[in-house]
């Protein structure tokens, strides 16, 4: 505990020693009684990266964030921020700022009071506090609100103030705990864009927890998908979408979710009943030999329909069961090879329930998983 953060030093002063990693987590374990919430978790977050922790509720993503913030003590393992071991450090000495889902503004203080509270605790001079508060207010466009109480602000304004509270502290790492979940859909989209703009302006490391995959895909440089206290896949949004590491990730990302057909892989050809899918152009993780059980995953939006079917590598037919017109797209529910199969078509597509629909499949855009381990082949 001899190391204490010098609040005056700018983030740039400490970059050299960290070797490009802003946050490093080593073998982190956390148990509540007998329940293991995090298990041997390792994670490196790059300098200036926007990392999203994504998962359904109870997967441990918020717990992990709270550990990084220092609000929860891990059972075992270490956390480094900027190369400094902060595992047992107070939250305020870690060089982090945090934004909460419920905004967590101090109700009795004005916006200015909220922004300067942390700085007062760190004993900054009055001039410095004034300078930082006005800078943050300018970045977030909340100058006119500075003398109001949080109760007199709208949800979006409150969240801006909450971001400002992290901003004034001039920290290395921003932590966001589902910051947009309490806002309505339109405001959420607006603030999402604003956050992205903020990140490209500040270039701070940001770790962002959400269960909303749209937020994850749009904001992240990399996404960590979590399940049961473990990271399932850590990769760029593009990689996660196109090359999911296992069936869980494939199923979790994408809406409507991926179609799965369970069958046999013979050589490089997937077979199920009378459907035969030669995996031409597929990017194999390891080239298969012999015969094995496999699951093929095809995203509803990757199914080829209309005139393009004629040129598709593999053709089949689906009977439309339910048709859901959604304006921009039409979602068709049917069956293929005895299993439910969803197709996303153009919004103008004229499909009726009961129609026999010719479809095409491009194996190079599909995903193959081992049916036992559910890992990508």
């Amino acid at each position: 505990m001899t190391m204490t953060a010098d609040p005056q030093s700018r983030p740039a002063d400490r970059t050299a020693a960290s070797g490009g990693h802003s946050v490093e987590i080593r073998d982190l374990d956390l148990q509540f009684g007998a329940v293991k919430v995090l298990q041997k978790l390792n994670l490196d977050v790059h300098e200036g990266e926007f990392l999203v922790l994504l998962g359904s509720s109870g997967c441990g993503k918020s717990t992990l964030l709270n550990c990084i913030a220092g609000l929860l003590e891990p059972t075992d393992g270490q956390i480094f921020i900027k190369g400094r071991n902060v595992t047992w450090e107070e939250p305020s000495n870690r060089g982090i700022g945090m934004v909460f889902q419920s905004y967590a503004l101090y109700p009795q203080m004005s916006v200015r009071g909220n922004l300067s509270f942390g700085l007062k605790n760190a004993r900054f001079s009055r001039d410095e506090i004034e300078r930082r508060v006005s800078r943050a207010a300018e970045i977030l466009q909340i100058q006119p609100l500075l003398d109001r109480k949080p109760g007199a602000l709208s949800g979006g304004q409150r969240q801006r103030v909450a971001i400002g509270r992290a901003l004034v502290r001039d920290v290395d790492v921003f932590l966001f705990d589902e910051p947009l979940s309490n806002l309505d859909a339109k405001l959420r989209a607006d603030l999402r864009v604003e956050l992205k703009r903020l990140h490209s302006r500040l270039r701070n490391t940001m770790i962002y927890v959400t269960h909303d995959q749209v937020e994850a895909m749009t904001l992240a440089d990399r996404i960590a998908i979590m399940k049961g206290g473990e990271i399932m896949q850590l990769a760029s949004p593009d990689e996660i979408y196109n090359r999911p590491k296992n069936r869980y990730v494939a199923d979790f990302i994408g809406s409507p979710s991926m179609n799965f057909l369970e069958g046999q892989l013979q050589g490089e050809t997937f077979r199920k009943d009378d459907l035969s899918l030669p995996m031409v152009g597929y990017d194999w993780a390891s080239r298969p030999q012999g015969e094995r059980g496999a699951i093929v995953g095809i995203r509803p939006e990757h199914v080829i329909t209309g005139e393009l079917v004629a040129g598709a590598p593999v053709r089949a037919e689906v009977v439309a069961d339910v048709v859901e017109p959604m304006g921009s797209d039409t979602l068709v529910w049917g069956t293929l090879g005895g299993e439910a199969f969803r197709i996303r078509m153009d919004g103008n597509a004229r499909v009726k329930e009961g129609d026999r629909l010719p479809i095409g499949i491009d194996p190079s855009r599909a995903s193959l998983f081992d049916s036992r381990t559910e890992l990508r082949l």
Partner: protein
Amino acid sequence: MSDIGMLNTVKAAEDPVRRVLDGPRGARPKRTFSRTNIFLYGTLIVVALYYLLPLYVMLVTSVKGMPEIRAGNVFAPPLEITFQPWVKAWAEACTGVNCEGLSRGFWNSVRILIPSVLLSISIALVSGYTLSKWKFKGSEVFFTILIVGAFIPYQVMLYPIVIILRDVGNFLGVQLFGSLTGLVLVHSVFGMPILTLLFRNYFASIPEELFKAARVDGAGFWGILFRIMLPMSLPILVVAIILQVTGIWNDFLFGVVYTRADSYPMTVQLNNIVNSVQGIKEYNVNMAATLLTGLVPLFVYFVSGKLFVRGIAAGAVKG
């Protein structure tokens, strides 16, 4: 009601557009003398009278002279108002050999009340805060023990506390048993369970994220308590103050057991005045003395009644 209705009609008539657009709006008006209202208000008035009658008798008697009281008409308003009984009760009434009236007891009670209220609320505030936001290993057990303490009858603990006060006092070389200091300590200890429960539940209802945000902002145990939690706790503080002020002011048992004649609180002295066996019973003085003793809690209720209800409700939300 009908006046407002008239006003609206007149206005509507002046404004033709509004008259067309305006049909009757809002809930259907109810008659003032409906059967429900008669029953409801009738009951309330009867109950209120029932409770106010003794107060009325006391007030009236306290401003009558003794001859008028002896005439025996308890409910009759005074023929001749005199404040002599009040003066006597406050400054001249005798208990045993000393004839200083209630005034001495009043100041004793004040000297007991103020430190007891401050001390018990301060301790309970900090323990309630710790038990809700800084839970430690065994904090739940600790809390349970504290709550169980609230259910043990006072009478069981009277004598053990006499011994504790005497021995601790002897050990420290100060007089605890038979002094105001000792009584203040006793009141503070007995205020603990209920006040701690009150504060703990109130703080538990303050969102966890607020507490986390303050920690990230570098506030420590005391910083969060004084700068974040306390400014939000006015309603519950008012509840605690009312509970303690009325409870301690009205206390008789501890006062009579743990103090001596020269430091008796007002309630004990009131009893001594009213129950004195020598001389004639001066009912008017007794009534005035009783009303004087009850003024402090009454005053507190009147001033802070609204806040009290709000605070009780706020503490009750989460347990």
